[in-house]
């Protein structure tokens, strides 16, 4: 694990909210059934949109800050310090 950058508090808050929402939607999906049609449709759409926003955040931040990356690695953020880490997947 290697520290490769830092984001602002506002940027951290943005991804933390998306992270929480994505987790919430995933766990809601475990209990919501298609017979609750309106809510189910809303959930399916929301999961797609939130996932897209989530990935977009990482893409735009990576472009903005030019973090060091690696082929077999991924980035993580520490919500308490706003630090970005490069994690080796191997």
């Amino acid at each position, binding site marked *: 694990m290697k520290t490769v950058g830092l984001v602002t508090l506002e940027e951290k808050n943005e991804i933390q909210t998306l992270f*929480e*929402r994505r987790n*919430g939607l995933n766990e809601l999906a*475990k209990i919501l059934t298609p017979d609750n049609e309106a809510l189910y449709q*809303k*959930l399916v759409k929301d999961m797609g949109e939130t996932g897209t926003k989530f990935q977009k955040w990482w893409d735009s931040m990576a472009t903005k800050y030019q973090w060091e990356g690696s082929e077999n690695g991924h980035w993580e*953020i520490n919500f308490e310090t706003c630090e970005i880490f490069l994690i080796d997947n191997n």
Partner: protein
Amino acid sequence: MIKNNDSSWQSNIAKTITFIVTKDCQLACKYCYLVGKNTKERMSWDVAKQAIDYILDNEYDENFNHDSVIFDFIGGEPFLEIELIDQICDYIKSELYRRNHHWFNSYRFSFSTNGINYHEEKVQRFIEKNITHLSIGITIDGTQQKHDLNRIWKGDGPERGSYDDVVRNIPLWLSQFPGGATKVTISSADIPYIKESVLHLYSLGIHEVNINCVFEDVWEEGDDKKFEEQLMELADAIIDNDLYKDYACSFYTEHMGKPMDCKLENNNWCGAGQMLAIDAAGNFYPCTRFAQYSLRDKKAWIIGNIHSGIDKNKLRPFLTLDRCTQSTQECIDCEVASGCAWCQGENYDAADTPTIYQRATAICKMHKARVRANNYYWNKLYRKLELEGEEKPAEKTFNLNC
């Protein structure tokens, strides 16, 4: 992609809402403050639902407009009511989403459990279903000897400790919550076992030990000296074996034991009144410690109920309570005041009149002993780091709620 420490999740900005789902427990711990435990008062689904509806209906009220929320479940032993809890959590999730409530993006379900039925299928199914929103602490008091001294099974017949029934679930718990912290409570008889107990918990893989002395007036002559010696021996063990690098014990806190200013440092220690607790009858309390089953000598402090809502007048004393107004002159003048804790519920229960404005001071000599040992710990650690040319470790923060 995300890293977070869940043990202190959103501390200070989250509203804590506690469901007292049952007043029953498998154990009869000797130091337990719950004097009114029983098998009858179990929360019904109807009461739980009405409570949730009331809370969510009042999203923008000053009592519920916090950025985040922690739904806390306690007992007795909360996991005795896992089916009800499961139903409550499912309802909360779907209602938060259906209402577009701002808490959908920031909620947790929190549990303090004795760990006995942690492995059971119903409990595990619940954990699997809600894993990213859970904070679960298992209480284990240390070595078998120390644990079994207090944490014994309920019932007649010979005393039976619960250590074996809890420790078997620790590996499972840590595999699900690697940062899991445990809470240790110290009473007079536990003092000789503090050092070995904390080290034992570390050896089980628990990296964070939140530990505190009971606030009740249980201390005997000489306890402070014995306590101080135990903490100093523990300090030696932690520092000499480099355990401070990966493990934490809440006894040692860098910035404590200093005089305090009545203007600049006048906040109340306890969060009672900022929280909301709900019992089986649908009554609201400023904290669970103000429910009748927690009180020895005083009447329950009810601040409303699921039908009529919160009576805000009954919260005013909590929200305007400061450190100095409730403290004795001795506490105000104390040279080592910072870090000295109190429990508002115990203050109320022990007070000469029915008030939260009389600070109980039974813990005084234990706090002073802790301060001396704490000074020893940091002096020793800094000297070691200095000699080894290392930097000071960042101080860890602790969840020291009662």
